[in-house]
């Protein structure tokens, strides 16, 4: 499989300003090949950017280059209308044509593009999205997930030069999200089309994106790899403590069918993920760990509370080796226990919270959100050895690459 979109011009060079009552968008970024996430809280201007790129809105100033072609340039009076841009948009609510069958919806855009421009065959798209059995039905009879799959197929068959997905999952419930995500992964890997994926869900960024453009209040506040954009510095950039997230990568050790969990091997210890995870192309699994669900335990506490775990773990000798007392029978339910060293502690000036960056064995960084009080109670300092406890149920399986649903 070739690198998606490796041999084409930069899909999008965006630099536009637009005014709306009580809101100003002034953003500049580029979108490369593969899947780029446009990430930010709701109301930050993501959808406005989508409309500008699709040609549904005119900028106040600035320009947009689409694969090297200027499609909007206010200074030079250039504005290419939507139907000549070939930017297919998958909207939040599929927007299928209610008076046409699924099949007629699918071919609506295909028939408007010259044959030699097509890059995905009708049969391919239908089999990748698993919608063959829906073709004679009307949109009103489809479930939300089915509609969204048809909308994705319709967008790809229109042979777009850029595929935009505007919060395609946000109107679906968790089960439906898990149903669609594998299809989006396949579309990303199978068809040679750059994708701009708009979302406010960290899990989707983690699972799908190779690059992230972070947007807040109509401005771009960062561009880079998902791990950089979601982790370090995210707290300072105004994201809430619930949004602070770390990315960990590991390999699948086994699927425990009896408990319906997947065990992931990580250099710092085993990570338990709910549900079944199918290994991706390289066998590597990427998952998001919310900082608010990470508990830190120091050597002393480990010795008393989870000492028996430390004994089972080869090479773990940080706990005291005194004979078990009655306290050692106290046990903790968290199964994911990762060894690491505190790299940095960042405290609120007078607020309640602090953020601790832990360098795990193997080199990855795990963020933990704690109260300042907890930091002082444990006298945590950079350089301390800690055990990071992660509740498996706090890991959003929709954000685990290759997750096949439950």
């Amino acid at each position, binding site marked *: 499989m070739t690198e998606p979109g490796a041999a084409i011009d930069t899909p999008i060079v965006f630099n536009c300003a637009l005014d709306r009552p009580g809101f100003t968008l002034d953003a500049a970024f580029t979108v490369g090949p593969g899947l780029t996430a446009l990430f930010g809280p709701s109301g930050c201007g993501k959808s406005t950017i989508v409309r500008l790129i*699709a*040609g549904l809105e005119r900028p106040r100033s600035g320009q947009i280059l689409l694969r090297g072609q200027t499609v909007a340039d206010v200074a030079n009076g250039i504005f290419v209308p*939507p*139907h000549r841009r070939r930017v297919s948009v998958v909207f939040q609510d599929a*927007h299928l044509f*209610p008076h046409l069958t699924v099949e007629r919806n699918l071919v*609506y855009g295909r028939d*408007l593009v010259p044959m030699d421009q097509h890059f995905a065959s009708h049969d391919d798209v239908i089999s990748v999205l698993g919608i063959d059995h829906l073709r004679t039905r009307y949109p009103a009879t489809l479930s939300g997930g089915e509609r969204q799959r048809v909308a994705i197929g319709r967008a790809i068959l229109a042979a777009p030069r850029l595929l935009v997905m505007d919060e395609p999952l946000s109107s679906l419930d968790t089960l439906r999200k898990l149903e669609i995500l594998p299809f989006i992964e396949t579309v990303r890997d199978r068809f040679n089309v750059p994708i701009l994926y708009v979302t406010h869900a960290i899990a989707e960024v983690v699972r799908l994106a190779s690059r992230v453009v972070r947007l807040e209040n109509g401005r771009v506040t960062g561009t880079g790899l998902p791990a950089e954009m979601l982790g370090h510095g995210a707290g300072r950039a105004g994201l809430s403590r619930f949004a602070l997230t770390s990315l960990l990568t590991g390999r699948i050790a086994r699927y425990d069918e009896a408990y319906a969990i997947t065990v992931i091997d990580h250099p710092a210890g085993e990570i338990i993920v709910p549900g079944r995870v199918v290994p991706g192309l390289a066998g590597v699994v990427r998952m998001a760990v919310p900082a608010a669900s990470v508990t830190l335990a120091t050597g002393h506490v480990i010795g008393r509370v989870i000492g028996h775990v430390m004994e089972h773990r080869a090479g773990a000798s940080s706990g005291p080796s005194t004979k078990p007392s009655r306290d050692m029978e106290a046990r903790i339910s968290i199964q994911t226990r990762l060894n690491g060293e505190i790299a940095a502690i960042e405290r609120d000036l007078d607020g309640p919270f602090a953020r601790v960056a832990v360098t795990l064995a193997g080199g990855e960084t795990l963020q933990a959100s704690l109260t300042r009080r907890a930091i002082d109670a444990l006298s945590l300092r950079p350089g301390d050895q800690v055990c990071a406890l992660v509740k498996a149920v706090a890991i959003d399986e929709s954000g685990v690459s290759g997750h096949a649903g439950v």
Partner: protein
Amino acid sequence: MLQFTAEEWVAIRLSLQVAAVATVASLPLAILAAWLLARGRFRGRTLLDALVHLPLVLPPVVTGYALLILFGRKGPVGAFFEANFGLVFSFRWTGAALACAVMGFPLMVRAIRLAIEGIDRRLEEAASTLGASPWWVFVTVTLPLALPGLIAGAVLCFAKALGEFGATITFVSNIPGETQTIPSAIYSYTQTPGGDAGAVRLAIVAVLISLAALIVSELLARRAVRGQHYGAA
């Protein structure tokens, strides 16, 4: 009881013909006006809106008189049509159709406009991002989705045309076999001693035709709506 005279049959046939021609001929113009009023952002939109609705509030006699002045053989528009297309309106059934079309126009535009305004614009936007030109979006998305409104508007216009009296009689008079429709025939009967039976016969016919039109439109609209429930789609 329903034994019609030859003259009555002519009036019935003429009524249907006038109403059908009035409806079909004004439909394209009504769609255009409805689309401009629903989607257009231009100067003079309010004026267009007022003009379209004027026949609804004017006394029909005034509308008929205005038509006589404009579309009569010596009128500016009437002379133009006669010179260029050989089409004469005054005291012909074509004039009756024109009067009916003008009177039914606001009702038709109103129904179609409401239908177009009810269409989710995001469907039209989705079509345009898939490569459809504005005209193609209109033909493949807007019009089919507005079809129930189109049918409703056409039926309203047809029914209005069947009942039109004031403007028609002012513009093209009441000539049996040429411009005498059911309403003007009923009017003639009521002006004639012993004409009651004829008036009742024609009144029954008017009721039956109107009922049939409503039922047919309901069936058509139901078929048009099938498979295109909006809901969460």
